C-alpha cells in the first residue's frame, strides 16, 4: 500500500531533519551535551514535548484509552503530572547546579565515583529499554506504509538519527525536535478535529468529549457507555483495576517521568533556573495539547469502530469489493468498510467467523446476547485508521505516518544523548581518564553516540523477534522512579544525605524494582500474588519509598557529608545574584 502522499511527507520531513542537523553542528562539548546552555525556554519546551512524546504516545495511547476507558487515565495523569514534580522539585535546582548529565549531579553531590557509576548504570538501563521500543516503532511504520522490510526500516531510521545526533549533538537534536513536534502535533490534531465534528458537531475535541452526540440528545459519553455495555464490555467510564493499583501506576508514571534522564537533561540546555521553570511550563502546554486530545480521540474511535464494524457483512478478499458492497447495501445490510479491508493485511485488525454467518460480531466478555466475539483490533489501529474512518483526504494519512515517525525519532534522539553523554562524559572523562581534554571528549561523545545508534538499531531488530518491548516499558518508569528520583530529590532537599545513603538507596531501588518486575512479568504472572495488589507497572512507586527510607536510615547511621557539599547544596537552593 505505497501511497505517494506518504512517501512525499516522509521524504520531505526527513530532508528537513537532515538540513537542520547540518545547520546546527556542535563545535564544543558544551554544544554537544547541553546546546551551549543557550536554548530559549519556549523552544526548549517544544523540544522537550517531542522528546517526551514517543511512538507510544502518538500511536498507541489513544487506542489504549479507547479500550481501557477510565483505566486509561493512569497514562493521562501519570505522564503529565510528572512535569509538576519536575518543575517544582528538580529542574530549576539541577539547572542551577549547571553541569551536563544526571550522573554528573549524583557523582558530585555525593562526592563518590561509585555513586556516579551506579547512576550511569541506571541511566543506561532506563534509556536502552526505552529506545528499543522507539526503533521498533520506526521499523513498523516503514514496513507498514512504505513496503520496506522491517529491518531496513530500522536501518533508515538509524541513518537519519545518526546524522543529527552524532553531528549536532544536543544542539542538532533540540532543533530537529522542534520541527518534529510541529509535524506530530499537526498530524494528531487534524484527524481529531474532523472526528469531533462528525460525532459531536463541535470542532474542538476537548469540548466534543464532554458534549452531546450529534443529533441524539444524549451526551457522547453516555451514548458510548450504553453502546459498550450492550455489547458486553465494561462501562467506558469504569475500570476493572483496583483503586490502589490505579493510584500506584499513576504515581509510578509521575515519579518515573520526573526521574527519566532524557527528560531531565533537556532542562540543562536553558540559561537559568528561572528559564528551566518556565520551560517546564511550556513543555507541559505542548504535551497537554496532545494529552487532552487523546482521550477524545479514544472515545470517538471506540464509537466509530463499533458503528462501522459491528454487525457488518464481511467481504472476502477474492470478492469484488465495490460490487459486493453495493449488493449488501441494496439488501439493507451494512458492508465491511473499505478502511477495514485496507488495514487487514497488516494484521492490526482480524476477523474470525466463529458462527459462520458471514457477519462481523464485535462483543465483550459479558455479551447479553451470548454471542462470541469475532473481531480483534490492535490498539494502534485507532490512530492509524482514523483519517480513513473519518473520510479525510489521502494526504492526511501520509501526514499521520510522518507524525508517528517524528514521534519515534525525536524520542530516540533524546535517549541517544543520554547514552552517549553517560559513556563519554561520566564514564570516560569523569571516571576513567580524568585528564582528557575537551576536543578528545567531543570525539569520544560522537563515537559513543554512533555506537549507541548502532546498538539501539540492533536492539530494535532483535526486539521484534522476541516481542518483549511492551513488557519492559514498565522497567523504564519503575526504575527511574525507584532508583534515580529519591537520590536526586534528597540530594537537593536534605543536606545531611550522604554518599553511603545515596549508594544504598539507588541499589535498593534498582534491585527490588528490577526483581519484582522480572518476577511478575516472566516467572510468576499470576496477579493474585502481587504485593499489596500492586501490578509491576505500579510497583516503582512502592519501592521508591523503600529506597528513600533505606537512604535516610543509612545516612543517619554514617557520618555527615563534608563541608564543601553542604555549601554546594546551599548554592543550588539559594542562587546568589
Amino acid at each position, binding site marked *: 500500500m505505497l501511497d505517494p502522499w506518504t512517501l512525499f511527507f516522509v521524504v520531505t520531513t526527513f530532508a528537513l531533519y537532515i538540513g537542520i542537523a547540518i545547520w546546527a553542528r556542535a563545535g564544543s562539548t558544551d554544544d554537544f551535551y547541553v546546546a551551549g546552555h543557550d536554548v530559549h525556554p519556549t523552544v526548549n519546551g517544544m523540544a522537550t514535548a517531542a522528546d517526551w512524546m514517543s511512538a507510544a504516545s502518538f500511536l498507541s495511547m489513544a487506542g489504549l*484509552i479507547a479500550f481501557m476507558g*477510565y483505566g*486509561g*487515565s493512569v497514562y*493521562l*495523569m501519570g505522564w*503529565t*503530572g510528572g*512535569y*509538576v*514534580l519536575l*518543575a*517544582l*522539585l528538580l529542574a*530549576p535546582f539541577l539547572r542551577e547546579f549547571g553541569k551536563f548529565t544526571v550522573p554528573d549531579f549524583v557523582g558530585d553531590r555525593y562526592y563518590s565515583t561509585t555513586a556516579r557509576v551506579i547512576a550511569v548504570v541506571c541511566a543506561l538501563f532506563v534509556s536502552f529499554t526505552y529506545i528499543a521500543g522507539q526503533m521498533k516503532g520506526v521499523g513498523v511504520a516503514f514496513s507498514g506504509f512504505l513496503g520496506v522490510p522491517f529491518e531496513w526500516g530500522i536501518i533508515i531510521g538509524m541513518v537519519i538519527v545518526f546524522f543529527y545526533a552524532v553531528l549536532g549533538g544536543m544542539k542538532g537534536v533540540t532543533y530537529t525536535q522542534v520541527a518534529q513536534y510541529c509535524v506530530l502535533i499537526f498530524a494528531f490534531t487534524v484527524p481529531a478535529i474532523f472526528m469531533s465534528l462528525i460525532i459531536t458537531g463541535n470542532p474542538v475535541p*476537548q*469540548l466534543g*468529549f*464532554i*458534549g*452531546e452526540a450529534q443529533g441524539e440528545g*444524549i*451526551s*457522547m*459519553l*453516555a451514548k458510548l457507555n450504553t453502546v459498550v455495555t450492550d455489547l458486553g464490555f465494561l462501562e467506558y*467510564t469504569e475500570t476493572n483495576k483496583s*483503586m490502589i493499583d*490505579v*493510584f500506584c501506576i*499513576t*504515581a509510578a508514571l*509521575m515519579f518515573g517521568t520526573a526521574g527519566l534522564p532524557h527528560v531531565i537533561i533537556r532542562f540543562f540546555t536553558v540559561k537559568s533556573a*528561572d528559564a528551566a*521553570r*518556565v520551560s*517546564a*511550563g511550556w513543555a*507541559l*502546554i505542548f504535551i*497537554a495539547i496532545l*494529552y*487532552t486530545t487523546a*482521550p477524545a480521540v479514544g472515545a470517538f474511535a471506540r464509537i466509530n469502530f463499533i458503528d462501522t464494524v459491528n454487525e457488518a457483512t464481511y467481504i472476502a478478499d477474492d470478492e469484488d469489493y465495490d460490487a459486493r458492497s453495493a449488493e449488501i447495501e441494496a439488501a439493507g445490510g451494512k458492508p465491511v468498510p473499505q478502511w477495514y479491508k485496507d488495514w487487514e493485511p497488516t494484521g492490526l485488525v482480524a476477523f474470525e467467523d466463529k458462527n459462520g454467518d458471514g457477519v462481523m460480531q464485535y462483543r465483550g466478555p459479558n455479551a447479553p446476547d451470548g454471542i462470541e466475539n469475532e473481531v480483534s483490533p490492535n490498539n494502534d489501529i485507532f490512530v492509524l485508521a482514523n483519517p480513513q474512518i473519518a473520510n479525510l483526504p489521502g494526504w492526511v494519512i501520509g501526514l499521520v505516518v510522518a507524525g508517528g515517525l517524528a514521534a519515534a525519532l525525536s524520542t530516540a534522539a533524546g535517549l541517544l544523548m543520554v547514552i552517549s553523554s553517560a559513556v563519554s562524559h561520566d564514564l570516560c572523562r569523569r571516571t576513567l581518564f580524568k585528564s582528557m581534554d575537551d576536543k578528545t571528549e567531543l570525539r569520544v561523545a560522537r563515537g559513543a553516540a554512533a555506537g549507541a545508534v548502532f546498538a539501539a538499531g540492533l536492539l530494535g531488530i532483535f526486539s521484534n523477534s522476541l516481542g518483549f518491548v511492551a513488557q519492559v516499558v514498565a522497567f523504564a518508569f519503575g526504575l527511574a522512579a525507584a532508583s534515580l528520583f529519591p537520590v536526586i530529590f534528597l540530594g537537593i532537599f536534605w543536606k545531611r544525605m550522604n554518599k553511603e545513603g545515596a549508594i544504598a538507596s539507588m541499589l535498593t531501588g534498582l534491585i527490588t524494582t528490577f526483581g519484582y518486575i522480572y518476577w511478575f512479568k516472566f516467572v510468576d504472572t499470576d496477579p493474585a500474588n502481587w504485593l499489596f495488589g500492586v501490578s509491576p507497572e505500579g510497583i516503582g512507586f512502592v519501592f521508591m519509598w523503600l529506597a528513600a527510607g533505606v537512604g535516610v536510615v543509612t545516612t543517619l547511621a554514617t557520618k555527615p557529608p563534608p563541608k564543601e557539599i553542604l555549601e554546594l547544596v*546551599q548554592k543550588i*537552593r*539559594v*542562587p*546568589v*545574584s
Partner: protein
Amino acid sequence: MQENSSADEGRAYWQATIRLTIGLLVIWFAVSFGAGILLRDVLDQWSLGGAPLGFWFAQQGAIYVFVVLIFFYCWAMRRIEKEHGVRA
C-alpha cells in the same frame, strides 16, 4: 554583619520556596489522586457537560490544573526572588 544578613535572607528565601512548593503539591495531589482517583465516585454525582466530574478530572481537568500550577509557580518564584534580593 553583611554576611549574617545575607545568610538570613537566604534562609527566608528557602523557607518561602518550601512553603510555596508544599502548597502547590497539595493542589497537585488533590486534582489528580484526589479528584481523579480517590474521590472520583463522590464527584461522579455531578457532571461537567456530558462527563461525570471525577472521570473528567482524571482525563482532562487534572492536566489543565497542572499547566496552571507550573506557570503560577514561575510567577510566584520570581516574586519571592525579588522580595529576598536573590538574583535581580
